[in-house]
């Protein structure tokens, strides 16, 4: 069930197990049969920690989704609410509790489990509603860092970026620091901490403070991680805005991956069973789990999409050849050999079928037939993907970033999705270190006139977060940053990459470049550029007891934990994995983040929630 978590350099099953244990302990506190009422957002992340079977073992008999009204009839002793500490959810719980039939017997006990933290504000709120006393246990379940894969941890806190950079609320940073303390309790104190950005500085400070305040946290575990690198998302606002071009990145861009699951249009997955007509095509989306437990997926997820096709066809040949082998199996020994491999082959075949279908779906969207290129017509999905990408790449390589872009204007005129427009305009702004007054005003006016004046609130948020800004002082330092950090590579090799820039077909993600340069030759070589990027950069050392200091075997790789505060994209993860696998790299990376994001989900989290249109 969780074998993929132990496949990496650091065995993350331990973290998962710690989470399961805490959950079991809480459940056992509420003696007797139970029903859980779920804040729906939590079911995904919880699914990565525990399955229903675990809950069942601890007498959870029913599960419901949290919604207003009377709670369903269920003959259980305990009703437990699993919720995020949010006021709107407290209102629902209040409603649930108030409508509970007091006359029923036996009476049901109520409990609340706050995830990831108990909130005094919420409890205050419940108290004002007069229901706080109804809860026997009010506890917290610190689901800070959830293991997603053998080298990937996420807090899945969707509003972390907004809170940090818009509202100046550092609570999510506090959780990040807590999560890091938990990690250190399991995997040993991390001797070296590097960081860049204000939030990084805060987290490092909190870690140091927490360590000082709980001297008990000094543990005797041999350190697994050599280095921690804390990176603020606002040090690199550019990367998430660009369209990711790795296989996994594109799946996320187009269909959205949530808690390792993706929902896909079902047409291409119709079961091809014999004797059945194509009558009942499935209409429900096909849901697939994507992680490195699947051999094939682990191999192709981080490749540039253009390199995926050839792998898939090679695999197809190997599998057909393997199935063919049964004809050559003569001796009993050979038959046995073949038979023993059959289940593996079946699994491989179904995995191959799935990914061939996904690749087809993506290809339909990303590939332009030659006929279409070169003249203008009403764009199909693929033409538009191509045009969009062209503009992005122009911006990132520094072409025409200082004037109003025709393609963006066209998209506004055709009323493409507002998020897409905002992604492009912000990208242009970031690649130009802010837009000229005239250009900014023009975009703003067009957007407000076409999409509605109320979006002035969203534009304002983007400005506050630094994604959209006025160029001040008339100096654009992006070209300097681009050249020094080699962010744009003209000769990119998508099939057999030799540089991280393959993940965006030319653009090397700034954040990952910083990690790469830190490992070799060190940040001292790029002091000038670091000063141009926002926030301080720093280094801290945590003292280890003498017995625990590492004596590195010759040729053994260092392990660096890169923590992205404010979100990370799949393409950046791919780039770090690429660095891990480089033969002479010398460093392996484990990635942690507040949330897995892409440009769309990111911009969305910054948009002002508007009331739905009246019809």
């Amino acid at each position, binding site marked *: 069930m*969780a074998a993929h978590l132990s496949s990496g350099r650091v065995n993350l099953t*331990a973290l998962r*197990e*710690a989470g399961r*244990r*805490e959950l079991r302990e809480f459940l056992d506190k509420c003696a007797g049969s139970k029903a859980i009422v*779920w804040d729906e957002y939590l079911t*995904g992340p919880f699914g990565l920690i*525990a*399955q229903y*079977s675990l*809950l069942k073992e601890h007498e959870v008999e*029913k*599960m*419901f989704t949290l919604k207003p009204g009377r709670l369903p009839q*269920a003959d259980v002793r305990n009703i437990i609410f699993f919720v995020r500490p949010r006021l709107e959810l407290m209102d629902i719980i209040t409603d649930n509790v108030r409508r509970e039939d007091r006359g029923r017997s036996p009476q049901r006990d109520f409990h609340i489990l706050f995830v990831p*933290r*108990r909130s*005094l*504000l919420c*409890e205050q709120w419940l108290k004002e509603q007069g229901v706080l006393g109804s809860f026997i246990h009010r506890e917290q379940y610190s689901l800070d860092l959830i293991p997603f894969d053998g080298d990937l941890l996420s807090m899945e806190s969707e509003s972390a970026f907004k809170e940090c950079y818009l509202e*100046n*609320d*550092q*609570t999510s940073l*506090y959780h990040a*620091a807590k999560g890091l303390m*938990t990690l250190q*309790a399991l995997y040993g104190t991390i001797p070296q901490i590097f960081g860049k950005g204000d939030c990084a500085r805060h987290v490092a400070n909190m870690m140091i*403070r927490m360590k000082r305040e709980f001297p008990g946290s000094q543990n005797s575990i041999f350190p697994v991680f050599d280095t921690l690198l804390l990176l603020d998302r606002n040090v690199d606002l550019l990367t998430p805005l660009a369209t990711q071009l790795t296989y996994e990145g594109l799946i996320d861009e187009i269909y959205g991956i949530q808690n390792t699951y993706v929902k896909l249009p079902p047409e291409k997955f119709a079961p091809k*069973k*014999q004797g059945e007509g194509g009558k009942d095509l499935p209409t429900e989306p*096909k*849901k697939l*789990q994507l992680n490195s*437990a699947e*051999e094939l997926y682990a191999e192709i997820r981080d490749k540039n999409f253009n390199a995926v096709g050839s792998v898939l066809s090679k695999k197809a040949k190997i599998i057909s050849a393997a199935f063919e082998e*049964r*004809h050559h199996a003569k001796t*009993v020994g050979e*038959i*046995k050999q073949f*038979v023993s491999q059959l289940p593996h082959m079946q*699994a491989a075949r*179904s*995995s191959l079928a799935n990914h061939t279908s996904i690749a087809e779906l993506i290809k339909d969207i990303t590939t332009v037939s030659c006929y279409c290129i*070169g003249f203008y*017509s*009403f764009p199909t999905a693929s033409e538009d993907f191509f045009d969009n990408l062209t503009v992005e790449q122009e911006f990132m390589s520094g072409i025409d970033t200082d004037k109003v872009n025709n393609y963006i204007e066209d998209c506004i*005129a055709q*009323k493409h999705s507002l998020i897409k427009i905002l992604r492009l305009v912000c990208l242009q702004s970031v690649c130009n270190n802010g837009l000229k007054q005239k250009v900014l005003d023009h975009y*703003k006016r*067009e957007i407000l*006139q*076409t999409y509605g*004046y*109320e979006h*002035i609130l969203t534009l304002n948020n983007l400005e506050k977060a630094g994604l959209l800004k006025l160029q001040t002082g008339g100096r654009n330092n992006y070209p300097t940053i681009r050249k020094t950090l080699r962010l744009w590579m003209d000769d990119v090799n998508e099939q057999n990459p030799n540089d991280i820039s393959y993940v965006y077909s030319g653009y090397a993600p700034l954040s990952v470049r910083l990690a790469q340069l830190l490992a070799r030759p060190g940040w001292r070589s790029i002091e000038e550029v670091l000063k141009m990027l926002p926030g301080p950069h720093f280094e801290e050392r945590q003292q280890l007891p003498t017995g625990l200091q590492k004596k590195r075997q010759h040729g053994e790789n260092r392990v660096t934990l890169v923590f992205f505060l404010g979100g990370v994209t799949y393409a950046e993860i791919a780039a770090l994995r690429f660095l891990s696998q480089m033969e002479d790299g010398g460093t392996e990376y484990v990635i942690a983040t507040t949330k897995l994001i892409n440009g769309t989900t990111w911009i969305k989290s910054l948009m002002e929630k508007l*009331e739905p249109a*009246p019809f």
Partner: protein
Amino acid sequence: MSRARADEEEYWHSSKFRAFTFDDEDDELSQLKESKRAVNSLRDIVDDDDDDLEKVSWSGEPVGSISWSIKETASSSSSLEGRDQPQKGSSSYAALPKQVSSYSLSSLFKGRNRLPSLPSLSDAFSDTGVKNYAPELRRPKAEYKDYSNDWSPRDTVRRMQRGKVCSLERFRSLQDKLVLLDEAVAGHDGNVITAVLIFLKRTLRREVLFRELEVRQVALCHLIHFLKETGEQKLLLDLLRFLDRTEEVALSQYREHLNIQDVEKKREFLKGCIGLPFSAEDISHIQDHYTLLERQIIIEANDRHLAMAGQSEIFRKYPRKASILNMPLVTTLFYSCFYHYTEAEGTFSSPTNLKKTFKIPDKQYVLTALAARAKLRAWEDVDALLTTKNWLGYTKKKAPIGFHRVVEILQRNNAPVQVLQEYVRLVEDVETRLNLATKYKCHDVVIDTYRDLKDRIQLMAYKCKVERGSAEEEKINSLLSNM
């Protein structure tokens, strides 16, 4: 699954396969038995599970996952009536025990080389070995019990960080309260900071609270966030005003309009917003927002009346699908070009009036008007829209959006070839013109273009694309003979 069985059958029946010949040597007989056993067990494995690791329902939810179970248990409880419930429940759990300790297929395979078999991880961890992996992360239980009335501000904050309830009422003097707040801020835990702020908000006079927060930026941000969250708009605005953050006051107040459903009230509210201290760039947009809604209310009242009376042909022929209230400006312009195109500039609903009032750029105007008139297939209007007269009275076709865009819009509205042709001809870029003309079968334009390019070869090639014996073919022939 049936697929797997079919393969299996094909496998055994395949003629090339000769395993079950009984004249095998003796010592192979035992092996044969073994392999037969293997094959039989294989049926179980292959039939059992097609997907790799877990049992997965069609929607992809692994059977036994949490979201799957919510659906399952919820549905079984909705049909709660009496006895059939436990059955239902048990049937849905039937698949589970397998899950808990089952050996995944891939582990069987991978396991071959390493260990004889690989028990699932949840099994591995349920024994005592787990202690090495998962040390106690939480504080010892004893700490929950201790209690004192005499915690220092620092201890109080620490206790609150650990999720324990503390009484803050003991902090009576302003000095004490501020020390408490500073401790909370130093702890960076927003939860605690907010809790302390709630306490201060309740026990301090507003001016004192504001004054103290002004020099404590972090706490201030938390309070602002908190007030937004709980909807205490009045206090929020007072606070922002006190801080002289006027632009924020303005935006925050403007945001309120989103909660107003009644359009008349919304209009009044927006009118009030105009006087707010917005930044210079924003103020014109807010003004426009108000003016637009004001217009929309007038247009809506008029048109609803017209539509109901049933005397206006356009409303009868193309009934309105929705009200125009609260729509963006460009949508409103489209609406007005659709229903009110010919109205004089003096009326509020006329397109020219909108264009003037909101200073809509030419490009935007032409684009929108074109789309609206093309939708109505009013080709003369399209023609007029793109025709300009110079002072000598000569007319000329002009499209600020480029003729390729004109063609695209017309084509989308199924314009006839004669109409389309006229504008394809005006596309400046030769290659684009040829492409469009070919795509939309504007033969005349293609032929004329090749003629101008003096491209015999292409002209000859194009001959096969036009109808036999048509005027176009004749034209090509005559051109070819004269070239």
